[in-house]
C-alpha cells in the first residue's frame, strides 16, 4: 500500500486519549469510553526503570485486546533516547496503527522514524505502508518547522501541539486563557492544511475546570483543528459534543452535497442553496460535516 493512500490517514480523530502503557488497569478496556484514538504512552508516563516492562505489556495488549475499531497510536520515547527504536519494533510487531513521535523538531526526525517503521513492517510481516506516523511539536523550533515536518513523509497523518513543553520553551506557562498558545496553534493549523494533513491541539490538564475545557475545545474547533489530545475519559463527551454538527448544519450540508453533485453533472458551477451562494469550494466542508454527524450518530444517510 502506498502510505499516502492509506485510508486511515484521514480517519476521524476528534478525541485522542493518552493512556499509560504500563498500567494494565488502564489499557484493558478504554474503548468503553468511546474515544476515536487511544495513545498508549511509553514516554513520559512510564518511569525509566519500567520502560522494558511497559513494552511487554504493550505488545500483548496490542495483540490480544480487541479495541473495537479505536485507533491504537503508540507514543514512543524521544529520538534523543536509546529507547525509541525498540519501542517502534515492539509496537509494529504488536500491530499498532500509528506511531506518535514526541519532541519532533525537524523533517529529518520524521524520516528517521519512517525508516525504522518501514524496516519493522518488513521484519514482522505487516502490510507495507500500513503503519502511520504523527508528530508532536513541543518546542519553538518544532513549531516553526511545522511545514517541513508535515511534508517529511507520506505516512505522516498529522501534527499535535504539546503545550506544556512548548510554553516552557517560550519561557511562559499554560494560563488557561490560550494567549500563550495562539501563535503556535495558528501556525500549525496553517502548515497542516498547506500539507494536507490533520492538526491536533494540546491537552487540557485542569480536570476541575470543565467549563474552561469546553471553551478551549470550542476555540480550537473554530480555528480548524481536527481534534484534541485528552487525558481523561470525562473529556470525551464534551469534545464529541462540540464536534457534532447541529441538525440545521446537517440538513444544509446534505443539500449542498446533493446540489453540487446534480449541478456539476449539468455543467453548472455556481448556484444558490437556501439563498446562499454555493460552488465546488463548499463540497469538502459539507462532506466533512456529514462525516462528523455520522460519527455522532446524527446522520444515517448515504452521502
Amino acid at each position: 500500500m502506498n502510505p499516502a493512500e492509506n485510508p486511515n490517514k484521514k480517519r476521524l480523530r476528534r478525541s485522542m486519549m493518552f493512556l499509560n502503557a504500563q498500567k494494565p488497569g488502564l489499557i484493558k478496556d478504554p474503548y468503553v469510553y468511546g474515544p476515536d484514538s487511544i495513545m498508549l504512552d511509553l514516554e513520559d508516563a512510564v518511569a525509566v526503570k519500567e520502560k522494558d516492562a511497559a513494552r511487554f505489556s504493550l505488545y500483548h495488549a496490542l495483540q490480544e485486546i480487541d479495541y473495537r475499531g479505536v485507533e491504537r497510536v503508540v507514543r514512543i520515547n524521544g529520538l534523543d533516547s536509546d529507547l525509541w527504536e525498540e519501542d517502534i519494533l515492539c509496537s509494529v510487531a504488536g500491530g499498532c496503527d500509528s506511531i506518535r513521535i514526541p519532541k519532533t523538531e525537524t523533517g529529518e526526525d520524521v524520516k528517521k522514524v519512517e525508516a525504522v517503521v518501514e524496516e519493522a513492517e518488513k521484519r514482522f510481516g505487516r502490510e507495507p505502508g500500513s503503519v502511520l506516523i504523527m508528530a508532536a511539536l513541543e518546542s519553538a523550533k518544532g513549531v516553526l518547522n511545522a511545514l517541513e515536518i508535515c511534508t517529511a513523509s507520506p505516512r505522516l497523518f498529522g501534527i499535535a501541539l504539546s503545550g506544556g513543553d512548548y510554553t516552557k520553551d517560550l519561557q511562559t506557562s499554560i494560563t488557561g486563557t490560550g494567549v500563550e498558545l495562539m501563535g503556535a496553534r495558528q501556525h500549525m493549523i496553517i502548515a497542516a492544511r498547506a500539507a494536507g494533513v490533520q492538526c491536533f491541539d494540546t491537552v487540557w490538564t485542569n480536570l476541575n475546570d470543565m467549563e474552561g475545557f469546553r471553551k478551549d475545545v470550542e476555540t480550537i474547533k473554530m480555528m480548524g483543528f481536527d481534534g484534541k489530545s485528552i487525558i481523561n475519559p470525562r473529556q470525551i463527551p464534551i469534545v464529541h459534543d462540540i464536534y457534532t454538527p447541529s441538525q440545521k448544519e446537517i440538513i444544509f450540508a446534505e443539500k449542498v452535497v446533493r446540489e453540487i453533485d446534480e449541478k456539476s453533472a449539468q455543467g453548472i458551477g455556481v448556484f444558490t442553496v437556501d439563498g446562499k451562494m454555493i460552488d465546488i469550494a463548499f463540497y469538502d466542508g459539507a462532506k466533512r460535516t456529514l462525516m462528523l454527524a455520522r460519527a455522532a450518530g446524527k446522520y444515517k444517510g448515504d452521502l
Partner: protein
Amino acid sequence: MEILKPAVAGTLESSDCMVTVEPGQGKVNLDLDSSVMRQFGPQIKKVIAETLARLDVTDVNIRVVDKGALDCTIKARVEAAVYRSNDIRKDIPWGGAIK
C-alpha cells in the same frame, strides 16, 4: 533462558500481578497467590507455564501474586521478569518467543 539472578516485574495494583523469578533447583517451581484463585487458578498456571516454555525456562523458582490480571498482563510480567534476570532490555524477539 537461564535465570541468572533474582528479578521482579509488575505491581500489586488491581488488574496487575507481581512476578518474582530466582534461580531454581533444576525444575520449574511455581508459587501462585491469586485473588481469583478458585475461578481462574488453573488458567493462570497454564499461561505461566506456556510463557516459561516459550522462553525456554526450565529451571526457576517463580512466585506470582495476581490481582486479577488478564492473560496478556500475566505473560508480559513473566517475560519482563525473565529478561530482567538476564539484564536484557533490547533486541527482544517480538513475535518469536514473545507472542
